[in-house]
């Protein structure tokens, strides 16, 4: 080697580019926040009788965004009364064809104002703008559009029965997909002729309150939709109120409390609760595709997903290569500003959730699993957690059993398909599962045996208004989405002669 060449080598290394990304923040100018948001009752925003307000923040900056009313039992009662009145006077007897038009209006307005909603969703919840923009909002609008069309076709959905609405639905939604969950709850309830009182999660009330404005502008009759903001106590008041049906999405722990609370009341109930989904990769799987599915399965929305693929089951022959590829892929994930269009993993939704994730991750280390986290710089303010992998996980570890609801993947191995089924089903949960293999017959064999309400084969975390979603076992009961998602909001009395 010549001297010149020897000298050139370090120079080339020196010039090796750093593949950084220039900031590409979405403008927040499209969002006009008010200082204070009252409760949305009987078609208007009202001050809470409770006299209480709370501050909602941006979890990426910890900056306050607005003051929001905290509904007490009296406020909840007034909202339920308004919903009852709207149900009795107007909505139940309005022909389905006319109900449909209101829902179509909402769908159209959501499409029209999608960017505004997406930005606000990311500001209030911490999720990456590319997700709120490309997934949450389009799906929310699609959900209203889909169920709008059912409103005047219900007799075709339930042959031999005469479907009729239940009455007033009390609906409690979580903070991980605030707008999408509002759509999942309101669209089928309204399409079937029920009226609703919706309680958004305390950390993410803002898009629901913006939705209230859309509902006003769509001229939905007052009282058909009421939105009461607050925390657990507000939710408890709603569950205990005179609603005819309770629909809850959230933790299994709270779901059980709700079940006990309304025991013997005759209230109808659907629960969409926690999960600990197995994402199963066979040795013949298209590995690069599978890696994308695994990453999407657990890091989508910071892992704040009840159906997240939080347990990766890898067939032993491909374990080493898959782990290497996965670690490499994790290095490319961009963690940071949710409003940056390049961000893959945004902010953890709240300090409380961050502490819960940290506690479970600490248990993983303490119980002997091996942790891997990519190097990445986290912002100084806000709530953040690095994408995390655990190998050496056994089925008895807490990180293999408990829902972490964060960007943390527990990896286990298996040898035979039977063992994969056994391990996948070894959970009190049963919300979703994933299977990766090129063999069609094996996919169907696995899909038949996995005790989960949704099975994604060679894909993961896909959602659609036409596709029913919901759990087996302690992941809840009832379905949301699709034809089957109508049933929880209907009486199916008689009809067959």
């Amino acid at each position, binding site marked *: 080697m010549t001297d010149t060449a020897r000298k050139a080598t370090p120079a080339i290394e020196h010039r090796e580019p750093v593949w950084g990304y220039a900031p590409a923040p979405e403008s927040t100018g499209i969002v006009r926040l008010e200082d204070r948001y009252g409760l949305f009752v009987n078609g208007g925003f009202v001050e809470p009788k409770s006299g209480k307000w709370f501050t909602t923040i941006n979890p990426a900056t910890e900056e306050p965004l607005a003051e929001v009313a905290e509904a007490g039992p009296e406020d909840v009662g007034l909202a339920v009364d308004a919903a009852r009145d709207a149900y009795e006077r107007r909505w139940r007897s309005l022909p389905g064809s006319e109900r449909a038009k209101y829902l179509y209006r909402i769908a159209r307005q959501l499409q029209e104002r999608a960017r505004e909603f997406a930005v606000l969703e990311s500001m209030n919840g911490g999720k990456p703008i590319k997700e709120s923009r490309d997934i949450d909002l389009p799906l929310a609008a699609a959900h209203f559009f889909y169920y709008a069309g059912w409103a005047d076709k219900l007799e075709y959905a339930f042959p031999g*029965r005469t479907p009729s609405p239940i009455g007033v639905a009390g609906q409690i939604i979580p903070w991980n997909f605030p707008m999408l969950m509002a759509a999942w709850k309101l669209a089928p309830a309204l399409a079937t002729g029920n009226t609703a009182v919706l309680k958004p999660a305390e950390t993410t009330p803002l898009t629901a309150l913006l939705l209230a404005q859309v509902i006003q502008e769509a001229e939905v009759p007052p009282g058909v939709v009421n939105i009461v903001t607050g925390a657990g106590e507000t939710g408890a008041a709603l569950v205990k109120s005179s609603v005819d049906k309770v629909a809850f999405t959230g933790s299994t722990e709270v779901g*059980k409390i709700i079940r006990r609370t309304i025991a*013997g009341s005759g209230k109808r109930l659907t629960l969409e609760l926690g999960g600990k989904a197995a994402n199963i990769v066979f040795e013949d799987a298209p590995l690069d595709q599978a890696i994308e599915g695994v990453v999407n399965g657990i890091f989508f929305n910071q892992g704040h997903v009840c159906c997240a693929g939080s347990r990766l089951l890898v067939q032993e022959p491909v374990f080493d290569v898959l782990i290497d590829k996965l670690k490499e892929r994790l290095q490319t994930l961009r963690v940071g500003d949710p409003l940056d269009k390049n961000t893959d993993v945004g902010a953890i939704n709240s300090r409380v959730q961050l502490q819960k994730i940290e506690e479970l991750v600490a248990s993983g280390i303490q119980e002997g699993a091996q942790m891997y986290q990519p190097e990445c710089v986290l912002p100084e303010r806000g709530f953040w957690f690095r994408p995390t992998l655990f190998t050496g996980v056994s089925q008895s570890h807490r990180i293999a059993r408990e829902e972490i609801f964060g960007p943390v993947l527990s990896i286990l191995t298996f040898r035979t398909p039977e063992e994969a089924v056994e391990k996948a089903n070894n959970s009190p949960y049963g919300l979703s599962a994933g299977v990766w293999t090129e063999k069609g017959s094996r996919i169907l064999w696995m899909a038949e045996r996995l005790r989960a309400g949704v099975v994604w084969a060679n894909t993961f975390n896909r959602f659609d208004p036409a*596709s029913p979603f919901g759990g*087996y076992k302690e992941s809840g*009961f009832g379905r949301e989405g699709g034809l*089957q998602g109508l049933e929880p909001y209907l009486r199916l009395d*008689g*009809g*067959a002669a």
Partner: protein
Amino acid sequence: MTDPVERVPVKRTAKLFIGGKFPRSESGHAYEAYAHDGRPLGWVAKASRKDLRDAVVAARAAQPGWAALTAYNRGQVLYRVAELLEGRRAQFVRELTDTGAADPERGIDAAIDRWVWYAGWCDKIHQALGSTNPVAGPYFNFTLPEPTGVVGIVPRGDQPLLGLVSRLAPAIVSGNTAVVLASETAPLPAVSLSEVLATSDVPGGVVNILTGPTAALVPWLAGHMDVNAIDVTGVADDLLPEVERLAAENVKRVHRAAEGDPFSMDAQSPYEITALMEFKTVWHPIGV
């Protein structure tokens, strides 16, 4: 010349039906059943909490195999039960008469017809109530109902045969297995049904029938962690809150059929089958 000896009839011992066998209660207890007019009808096994747990174990063991039968096969097995019921018609008429049923003949006829009606659903429920779903993307997406697993059943005690069949048949056609609490005051038609089931091709453990103190057993059924769903149609109103509270522990599905004329065609519905099923949705990409 001696008098002709009068033949002594052989009396039945009414036992529990667990895992295809007829054990006595492990507790050693039995209770006396009476006809509506007060005539004693004999002793009946008094199931204990342990018997109930044994029944759940038997139901759980039998469930995967029962669900794995082809729907056609399950339909034939259940149809055969109706054949055997028809053959024992006179016995059921007698037993229903003892319970004071207004029209015992109509009672057994309706029970047999209901059983045949539900048996025919085995290979149709998926087509009638499943779906393929037009998702907005290149995916094949379908939804099928699947059995929920082990189902606890509390039929109405005042309809000792038709009430039981109306709850049991829709529970098992889909591949669930069942633990049934028979009418406490009129248990004999249920005991006879268990004898029919035992001599049919229904695998042991698919149906388990317990006679005994319903109110004392229901909470143990409702709280059992290995029971997936409970049909509380026959649970007394004052017991229902406690049952639903206990059912919360493992997020048990709780189903209560609407009140109504049990003889009406409205009393049978495919939605009674899916009430004890889960909907599973499967996604797969479409591509080359």
